[in-house]
């Protein structure tokens, strides 16, 4: 029986992003055939891909507002069509800001803008912050992350505008009840963050990643591509991944093994493969 072709991934490169190469490499390590696709390519090309990633960085230099200008690009219209067809879409950091500004998440009211990734704001602390955090995966979620066996993932973040918020009262409670607050900042044991520094930016409900109602589009602020290999994990990180990292000290083959972010990419590529299989079968 011939081996199924690898799912094709498009990493969309807006001017000013800076994480496209490591994101493509992480997708390839998870089993995808990853291309970097410039934002001004023919949007019709998106139809040839099975999954999409909007990488981190500073699209359009964060002019006007992080993600705001990239959200108006024609390629987002085509991406909306692909997302509506159920293909997995992941926005990381600036990519998440683009997805929020473009109304992909939470997507409860069509294309309406329902959220913001606002400037970080915690009591007595504002502005850019970069550190490792722990993420708690929702117990029940429509996202492709629902298949993860590991529910607490350490990951780095680096942002100045990552505070999930909304003017709509009760929106985050509604999203959490529906499993759309897929990732929440937590401590190393998985207890949801009650304040700084575990919640680094003041996000409502300590949200770190929010998906759409169908679960195929995920906007997350931390960077899984910076945790895709064990060698990227800090040795002093609390929890089992820090322990694994210390145990692998000096052992290059083990350090090149999967890190905590790999599972996220593997889940996404797996979801894309399953979707294509289902489409091909019909």
């Amino acid at each position, binding site marked *: 029986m011939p081996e199924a072709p690898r799912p094709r991934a498009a990493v969309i490169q807006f001017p000013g992003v800076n994480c496209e190469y490591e994101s493509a490499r992480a997708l390839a390590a998870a089993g995808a055939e990853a291309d970097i696709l410039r934002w001004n390519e023919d949007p019709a090309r998106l139809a040839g891909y099975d999954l999409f990633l909007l990488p981190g960085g500073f699209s*359009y*230099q964060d*002019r*006007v*507002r992080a993600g*705001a*200008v990239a*959200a*108006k*690009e*024609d390629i*987002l*219209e085509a991406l*909306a069509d692909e997302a509506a067809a159920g293909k997995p879409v992941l926005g990381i950091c600036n990519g998440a800001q683009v997805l929020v*500004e*473009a*109304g992909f998440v939470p997507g409860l009211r*069509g*294309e*309406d*803008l*329902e*959220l*913001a990734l*606002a*400037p970080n*704001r915690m009591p007595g602390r504002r502005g850019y912050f970069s550190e490792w955090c722990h993420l708690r995966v929702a117990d029940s979620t429509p996202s492709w992350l629902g298949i993860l066996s590991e529910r607490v993932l350490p990951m780095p973040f680096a942002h100045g505008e990552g*505070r999930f*918020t*909304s*003017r*709509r009262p009760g929106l985050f409670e509604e999203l959490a009840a529906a499993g759309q607050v897929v990732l929440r900042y937590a401590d190393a044991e998985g207890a949801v963050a009650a304040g700084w520094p575990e919640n680094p930016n003041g996000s409502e409900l300590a949200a770190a990643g929010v998906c759409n109602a169908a679960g195929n589009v995920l906007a997350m602020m931390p960077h899984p591509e910076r945790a895709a290999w064990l060698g990227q994990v800090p040795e002093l990180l609390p929890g089992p991944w820090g322990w694994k990292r210390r145990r692998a000290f000096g052992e290059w083959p083990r350090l090149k093994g999967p890190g905590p972010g790999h599972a996220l990419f593997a889940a996404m590529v797996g979801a894309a493969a399953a979707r294509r299989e289902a489409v091909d079968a019909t």
Partner: protein
Amino acid sequence: MRLELRVELKTVDLVRETAWLALTEKLGWAAVLADLRRAVLWRFELSDGDEATLRAALAAELERTSAFYNPNKERHHLLAGGALPEGEPLAAADALEPPPAPGARLWRALVWVTDEGGEQAALRRRTARRLPGLSGLRAGTLWELALRADTATMARGLAAGLALTRRRRQGLLLNPHYQEGRLLTLAPGEEA
């Protein structure tokens, strides 16, 4: 009493250029939006003291610190007390979309975009030591829009329509989930 400081780049403003291109080429406002300018507006709320003394104290503070503007790349104008009104919030309900056919008259609108909780508390504490009576300090982006509309009501709707982001293809200049836009002034204008 209120004093206001307007700060603009001396050089080409790339944020303005990008916003202009997004509004006119991506969002279809080319026929309605005749011009767009950007500045930073600082608003100093003062609880006591006479205006002349306070203006002098603020001018000295501007010379002493680069917290409010960078003289190497920016120019500033200290506005007369009360030169700009409090303004009124832009409302999504008023927003006109898609951009209608351009009207016959030119209107100039000043829209001030501030972040929620944007009170500059730390800076205020430092500045207040040298500026007696300072009770509030806010900063935000001031967008000056030149709009083609037949009436003031229509011009107000246009300002709301292009400033307030409501959907992927509607609005750009502010995200109402953490920012507020106030229409400070709206007046008939002249062609540049």
